[in-house]
């Protein structure tokens, strides 16, 4: 039996680590580039150094923690609406 072709380049942990390393290097380059770019924002804070990097990081972290809290309030068992028969 012919074995189907599969991609497995993300399976070895060292490859994953390598990808993460490239990612961190890219982040570092973005941080450095910030000092060499002509800024023309409409608000004063847009001109602050590394503003978007900090805001992006904070936004996503807050998002996750609020979403975790939200799950506590709105999360129900999967069959919540199906427990009783009916269309609504």
């Amino acid at each position, binding site marked *: 039996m012919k074995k189907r072709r599969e991609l497995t380049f993300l399976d070895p942990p060292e490859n994953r680590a390598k990808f993460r390393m490239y990612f961190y290097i890219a982040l570092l380059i973005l941080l450095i580039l910030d000092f060499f770019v002509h800024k*023309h924002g409409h608000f004063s804070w847009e001109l602050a150094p590394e503003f978007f*990097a900090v*805001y992006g990081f904070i936004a*996503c972290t807050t*998002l996750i923690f609020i*979403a975790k809290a939200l*799950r506590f309030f709105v*999360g129900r*068992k999967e069959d919540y609406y199906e427990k009783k028969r009916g*269309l609504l």
Partner: protein
Amino acid sequence: MINVVPPALIFIIGAFLIPLLKGRLKSLYMLLLPVLALIDLLYMPKGKYWIIKFLDYNLIFGRVDALSMVFAYIFVLITFIAVLYALHVKDDLQHVAAFCYAGGALGVTFVGDLFSLYVFWEILAIASLLLILARRTDRARKAGFRYFLWHFFGGLCLLAGIILYVHNRGTPEFGYIGLSDLSTYLMLIGFCLNAVVFPLHPWLPDAYPEATVTGAVFMSALTTKSAVYILARTFPGTAILIWAGAFMTCFPIFYAVIVNDMRRVLGYSLINQVGFMVCGIGIGTQLSINGTVSHAFCHIIYKALLFMSTGAVLHMTGKIRGTDLGGLYKTMPFTAICCIIGAASISGFPLTSGFVSKAMVLTAAAKGHLYLVWFMLYFASAGVFHHAGIKVPYFTFFGEDSGIRAKEPPINMRLAMGIAAFLCIFLGVYPYPLYKILPYPVDFVPYTAFHVLGMLQLLMFGALAFTLLILSGYYPAEMRAANLDTDWFLRMPGRGFVWLCQKPVVAFGNLIERISLRMAGGSSKSLPGGAVVCEDGVDKFYHVGLTSTPTIIYNWVKHLRTEVGYLPWNLAYVFICFIGFLFIMLLLGVIK
């Protein structure tokens, strides 16, 4: 001069010929219809035509200007892509419904009077309902029923608004409406329901994941965007839409993080994207309207691409929940790449279509000095990358290996995804064809070093947060769950009402029936003499030998009982009749 036919007509009439054809001819015909419609569009002059006199009013089927043309182009384009994606489907109902649906959207784009607008609006609702029901599962049937109730409500609000509006102004023609009296508020509610404005949004994440694989692609493109078109036409510069839009960009991303069904995640991110458009409409400057229109154009393509790639996964594996999927890149690399391109576009990565369109709305907000809105929109930009950009591809194609080894989808699906993915990149690299057809002249340069770097920083550091949270285990795991949304406030009382009809009212009916039965001389075992039960069709009819007063009473009670069983339906029926009655009165000029 006008020797072309309305494009909506090509789709709607063309749809009904589909079941007559077979095999390759049918595929060819279905692909030809959008091409025909596109040629038709190219020959349509600007202006107002196709005016039909109806009673005292003019019905206008061709109000053609730059704004309607952009939306018509994208609707026809996406119909072509989605039809190509759906070519393998054997179910004619879906094809016919899809073409009627696209025809409805094109109709909405070109109408110039409120009466025809309403008709096309309802065609949209009903045709899309069929695409949900065509899934033929119990969940789809129930979701379709709820979808219908939502759109029914929105449609009635719109109709009530239209009737009042026409009554006040004496003409059904419309252009800019703007908020003034009750009629405009009612119409705004009707439009906002289709544009998934909070709190009228839950129908979307409820119904779209239950639609058929191919139907969801049409739905992601047509209903909400035709509502965006109508809002841009009738309510530009309405301040309340700025805040409604900004809020819409923010709240769905929290849901998208915790929702498990991948198409439901996309549903919530659809609300988030439409939020950018609604916000742009609210700001109402030339730049922001341009931003809204171009964002709608790009959004339709990349959202369809995302729905197509997740649909391909559902089609090939039968699974769509994040908890069931993972590691699919191994055997579906093409689908994975398409999904990543769609994900990059929706996040607004430079060199993809989302970047060149979203930047306009963001800049418009900044130019209007709306600093809080600006913060919200940037928060949402980072957030959308987080759930649609990373979560969908990551948990589907990468992440923990689920052991599923599915093949790539059929060739027509791959072709459709390929075209959409190409367009996403093409418009990102070279947006000028799009900028040229926008309603206002564009003097906006998307690619400045500052914009590119800012967006990249925002997104990449959002990705860093994702990476760190996943590695540390803080990221909320994929979990099977139902998440409550604002529809809870309707579904629970709705159930209460159904319970009231089914339990206490029925018990009361039983009691009355038993008493009248006794009086008519029957017992719980036997019917009174001369009673005939006729089970023909839906209703049960009882005929009792009407010889004495008690038997006549019993006969009445029996008839009444059959009716009480349909109480919710009957109430709805009375309501429709009432609105229809008002409508006819208005047409006849009685209420004037």
